[in-house]
């Protein structure tokens, strides 16, 4: 007869033969758990991700330039292949400012600036040039740090980093891609100097899954499994999406607008960033300006810490690295207040770069908009026609490689002779 917990225990012991009693038994259970995790990947293998999985790669016809970033939720982060011995790989990291989208009636041109640069420098030091684009939509400063860590660990021959001035020192959102935390933990685990920045973003769950992902394919590929499983789980959903209701034409109430928000930043932008009435229903351009004007340059923000670590790892990496600030639209720069705000950001960035100098690192802290002729923009930060920028960056990449004596030859082709 079962009267208390002890009786339950002895009953279980009788059936289970005393499993789980004693350290050796627990150890065997752990061993079986390991076997189980290995078995899952063996019994239910997954297809590895492909470049064509990224819709952005459909805009890049060249086989030598590819977006290597995986889905925003995918903890694997990036899809990295070795390009062989006779190759020179440039890891080009940046947010949406890497794109060049020119919309004209009947014909839209969609390219990536690094891919265009690659066409102008098809060969470096006698080797074929490859550009791995660590393109991160809506990247914040910590995301760029995570991508830089991944790029440095990928064995790339050079790193180029695009620092969008809207977000370098804006504390409204410091990280947008927390899915990179697991791999970032693995990258910084052996670098105690990076632990302080990691501790601010990486939680125990990220660390555990990051380490486990290194050893178990079933955990590493969990995003692919989640996609497969979710396809079947939709069958259980009570939400009937077969006949969607017609979209309402009525203006939304303030509460309905809040209900539609999917990101805390949207609430912040609407209600906190600016007190002006225009911002309440402001366009993307107005919001971008607010982000630029809202930068905090006290020198003691999380952003400062991340930028310092970012420059630190690039300076110590002993491989050529080039950092630049993309241009702001001339129409916005005509406003003295915006130009002054950008100048303050440039000055602060240059001061931080001066503290982390390295023989192979060059930081072009002055926005390219101050150097290049006026270009066509889609808003204040996204260029529509990037011709001058492509030429400038092609020469900047080659100059950096030659000045640091990293390579013997690097020649920029004229636009007419650009290779596919």
């Amino acid at each position, binding site marked *: 007869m079962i009267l208390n917990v002890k009786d339950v225990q002895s009953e279980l012991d009788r059936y289970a*033969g005393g499993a789980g009693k004693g350290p050796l038994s627990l150890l065997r259970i752990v061993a*079986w*758990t390991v076997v189980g995790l290995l078995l*899952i990947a063996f019994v239910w293998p997954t297809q590895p991700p492909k470049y064509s999985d990224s819709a952005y790669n459909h805009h890049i016809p060249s086989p030598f330039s590819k977006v290597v970033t995986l889905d925003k*939720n995918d903890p694997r982060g990036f899809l990295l292949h070795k390009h062989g011995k006779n190759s020179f790989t440039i890891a080009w990291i940046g947010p949406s400012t890497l794109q060049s989208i020119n919309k004209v009636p009947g014909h839209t041109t969609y390219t990536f600036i690094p891919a265009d640069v690659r066409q102008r420098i098809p060969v470096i030091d006698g080797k074929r040039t490859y550009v791995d684009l660590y393109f991160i*939509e809506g990247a914040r400063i910590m995301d760029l740090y995570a991508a830089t860590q991944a790029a440095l660990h990928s064995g790339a021959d050079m790193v180029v980093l695009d620092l969008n001035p809207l977000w370098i020192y804006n504390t409204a959102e410091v990280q947008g891609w927390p899915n990179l935390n697991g791999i970032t933990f693995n990258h910084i685990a052996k670098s105690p100097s990076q632990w302080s920045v990691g501790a601010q973003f990486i939680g125990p769950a990220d660390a555990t899954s990051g380490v486990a992902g290194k050893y178990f394919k079933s955990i590493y590929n*969990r995003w692919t499994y989640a996609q497969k499983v979710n396809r079947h789980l939709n069958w259980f959903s009570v939400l009937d999406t077969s006949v969607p209701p017609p979209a309402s034409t009525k203006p939304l109430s303030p509460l309905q607008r809040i209900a539609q928000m999917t990101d805390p930043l949207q609430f912040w932008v609407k209600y906190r960033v600016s007190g002006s009435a225009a911002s309440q229903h402001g366009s993307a351009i107005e919001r971008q300006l607010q982000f630029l004007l809202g930068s905090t340059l006290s020198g003691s923000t999380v952003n400062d810490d991340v930028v310092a670590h970012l420059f630190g790892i690039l300076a110590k990496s002993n491989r050529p690295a080039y950092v630049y600030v993309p241009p702001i639209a001339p129409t916005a720069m005509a406003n003295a207040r915006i130009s002054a705000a950008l100048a303050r950001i440039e000055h602060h960035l240059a001061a931080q770069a001066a503290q982390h100098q390295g023989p192979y690192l060059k930081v072009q802290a002055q926005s390219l908009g101050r150097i290049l002729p006026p270009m066509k923009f889609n808003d204040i930060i996204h260029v529509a026609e990037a011709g001058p920028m492509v030429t400038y960056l092609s020469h900047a990449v080659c100059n950096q490689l030659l000045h640091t004596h990293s390579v013997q030859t690097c020649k920029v082709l004229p636009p007419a002779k650009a290779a596919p």
Partner: protein
Amino acid sequence: MNRLRKYSTEAIIGIVLAGLIFVALVATVGTVPFIYQGY
């Protein structure tokens, strides 16, 4: 007999634990597509 029962129970617990860990980790990965809003 008792030892066989013990070892087989340990194997079952271990494998089930692996399954639970796998399901928990798969369930906590989001698959909702990201919509970029221009900033």
